[in-house]
């Protein structure tokens, strides 16, 4: 056990040695500036689908902070689509890069984040309190390691006109009604397109809630026992097989996150689970389609419960930051209602605050079709639910084990075998 530490130290020593000469020369400069206020803070965030959200930050918030404190904010926008996590991992491993960031999959590197309990608790107190579920992500061993910023709501996006055509006047309340509507729509040439590939949101956002609504969770509450191996899981898998065969477009089992947007906007599907980005694109580029897109809540399962999957945006401060306190000060300033509320509004509530003070704000009424996304917070769960959002849970997610349980069954593996394989892999991961 001593060996890794020794090897690691050797490697570090080597790097230190290499930097030695430069360090000697730079010594006086560093010591002169160590006490000074930082000149700039680097804030990394994945680009927002609602462009105005980033524009507001760059044009209003960053200049305002610089004016107030003299500290320049460098807004480092990361490309959307899965590249942010490797960048964050790289920052953590190299102990360099941004001072604070949207800490996606924070369970991977909580140890590299500083305690921000003082900020989170003050913000919660000030703005009506936090939703309980998000605390299970941001709080680790009793300390807040990130400050929640907002939830990217995932709901059923559907074509009102096509649903009307087959006589489905309101969005299905149960999964069985959902299947019934899908069969009718597929017969009319308007299948559903429910993502089941190796994406990062649009697959989990309906398959996990569906499982939960059948009374199934992947792990037990403590995250010690695999809870997937039940007859209810088999029923859920059989339902998804039927839904795929009778109501869906064939391609959707291989879809990544952009595919369902593309299929919806090109009129190939009548319903999918997604954020409201489809409506944003349609209103901008396809106004006629933009008028007939609606959002429905996930249907209820046999337990009579309905669930949604949270896609959290949380901000954390890296311990490797040259001045973590300065980054924390900025984070606190950012979450002040004077800054935070206009910022959230600039993004048309795409990022729904996990704070109860926002439950009934008039911003939710600007676009009635966005309002259902506020409801996601009430029934929303983390993908680890009810178990802790930890590394093992992240591994199950990033290896698509539960998603592939469904797709294996669809592509010919017997349901029992597909479940047994998933259970075996999860047991290996949790150890």
């Amino acid at each position, binding site marked *: 056990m001593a060996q890794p530490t020794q090897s690691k130290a050797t490697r570090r020593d080597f790097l230190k040695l290499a930097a030695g000469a430069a360090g000697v020369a730079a010594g006086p400069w560093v010591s002169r500036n160590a006490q000074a206020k930082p000149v700039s803070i680097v804030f990394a965030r994945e680009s927002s689908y609602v462009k105005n959200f980033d524009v507001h930050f760059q044009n209003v918030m960053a200049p305002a902070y610089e004016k107030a404190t003299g500290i320049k904010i460098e807004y480092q926008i990361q490309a959307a689509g899965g590249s942010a996590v490797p960048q964050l991992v790289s920052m953590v491993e190299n102990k360099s890069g941004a001072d604070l960031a949207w800490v996606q999959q924070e369970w991977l590197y909580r140890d590299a984040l500083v305690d921000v309990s003082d900020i989170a608790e003050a913000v919660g107190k000030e703005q009506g309190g936090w939703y309980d579920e998000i605390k299970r992500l941001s709080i680790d061993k009793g300390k807040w390691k990130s400050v929640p910023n907002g939830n990217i709501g995932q709901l059923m996006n559907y074509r009102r006109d096509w649903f009307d055509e087959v006589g489905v006047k309101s969005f299905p309340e149960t999964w069985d009604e959902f299947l019934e509507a899908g069969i009718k729509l597929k017969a009319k040439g308007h299948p559903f397109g429910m993502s089941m590939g190796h994406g990062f949101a649009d697959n989990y956002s309906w398959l996990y809630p569906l499982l939960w609504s059948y009374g199934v969770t992947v792990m037990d509450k403590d995250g010690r026992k695999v809870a997937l191996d039940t007859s209810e899981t088999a029923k859920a898998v059989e339902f998804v097989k039927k839904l795929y065969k009778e109501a869906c477009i064939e391609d*959707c089992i291989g879809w990544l996150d952009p595919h369902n947007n593309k299929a919806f906007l090109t009129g190939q599907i009548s319903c999918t689970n997604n954020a409201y980005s489809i409506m944003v694109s349609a209103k901008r580029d396809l106004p006629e389609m933009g008028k007939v897109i609606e959002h429905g809540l996930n249907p209820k399962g046999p337990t009579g419960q309905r669930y949604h999957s949270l896609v959290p945006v949380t901000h954390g401060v890296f311990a490797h930051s040259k001045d973590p306190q300065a980054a924390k000060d900025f984070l606190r300033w950012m979450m002040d209602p004077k800054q935070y509320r206009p910022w959230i509004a600039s993004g048309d509530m795409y990022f729904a605050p996990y704070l109860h003070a926002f439950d009934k704000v008039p911003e939710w009424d600007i676009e009635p079709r966005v309002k259902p996304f506020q409801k996601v917070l009430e029934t929303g769960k983390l993908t680890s639910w009810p178990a802790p959002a930890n590394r093992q849970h*992240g591994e199950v997610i990033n290896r698509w084990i539960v998603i592939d349980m469904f797709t294996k069954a669809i592509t010919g593996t017997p349901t029992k075998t597909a479940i047994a394989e998933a259970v075996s892999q999860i047991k290996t991961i949790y150890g």
Partner: protein
Amino acid sequence: MSKILEASRAGALAAPAHRPIRFGRLGAFMERESVFSWLMLTPPLLFLLAFLGYPFIYGVYLSFFHKEVARTADFVGFDNFVKLYNDPIFWQAVRNTIIFTGVATIVKASGGLGMALVMNQSFKLKSFARAMLLLPFIVPTVLSTVAWQWILDPGMGLFNRLLVVSGLAERGPSWLGTPTMAMISIIMVNTWRGLPFFGISILAGLQTIPVELHESATIDGAGTWGRFRYVTLPSLMPVILIVTVFSIVITFFDFQLVYVLTGGGPANATHLMATYAYSLSMGAGQMGLGSAVALSMVPVLGLLLVALTFFVRKD
């Protein structure tokens, strides 16, 4: 003045005619072939050591450790490899990688040979055609793969529209929606991208075959097939071997194409060792396990290359 002139003339006469500038001792040392060659080699060697050697050695080191992101590493010996041995997804990725590399390389080699033979003929706009054939190789993979996403779209994609419009099918297949079709699709896209590399390299080889060889074979009574079998193909074998070896290496490590097109799905049907190593390291944060997957590629690839070299030499 005249003395200076004389002295300088004498010096000029004494100096060898072919060496107008004197470098001194250092210059003479550097001009030695053994020293000069090392001087030229050092920068690329340092570059390779820094950007290939160091990551590779660090990867080997990590594969023997339980290393999670933001945590110190614990030495675990061969534990990561034992875990992989018992991991069905790993074995599926190995199978997929071998099928993907094998089929794509065979199709690229035979297609590239055909392409080179056609390009070696004289026809109008030959140069333009050659330039166009290089395009797939020039366009960044991520960009071209995004274009392929559209081409393979079940409803709006070019392939299925052509099938429907031409009346060949009522509706086209789901290119990425079934495990078999998804594998065929990634092989097709890889072939499209890699074919020009074979084509252009073999064409260069074709142009070095002396015309006299073909002429004497013709005099000996060889037909088109005979000339191809006994003159063209044997002359091309060294080029084909080198290009195939390069192609196997590049195809074996392909990542971008699969990552953008399928992410390894559906149901891991297109998960390659490179995409699996990435999802374990960067997604799941298991740097040690991910490195072990990456390292596992080396012996498989080494065996393939040794077998190929042995086969060709024997031939």
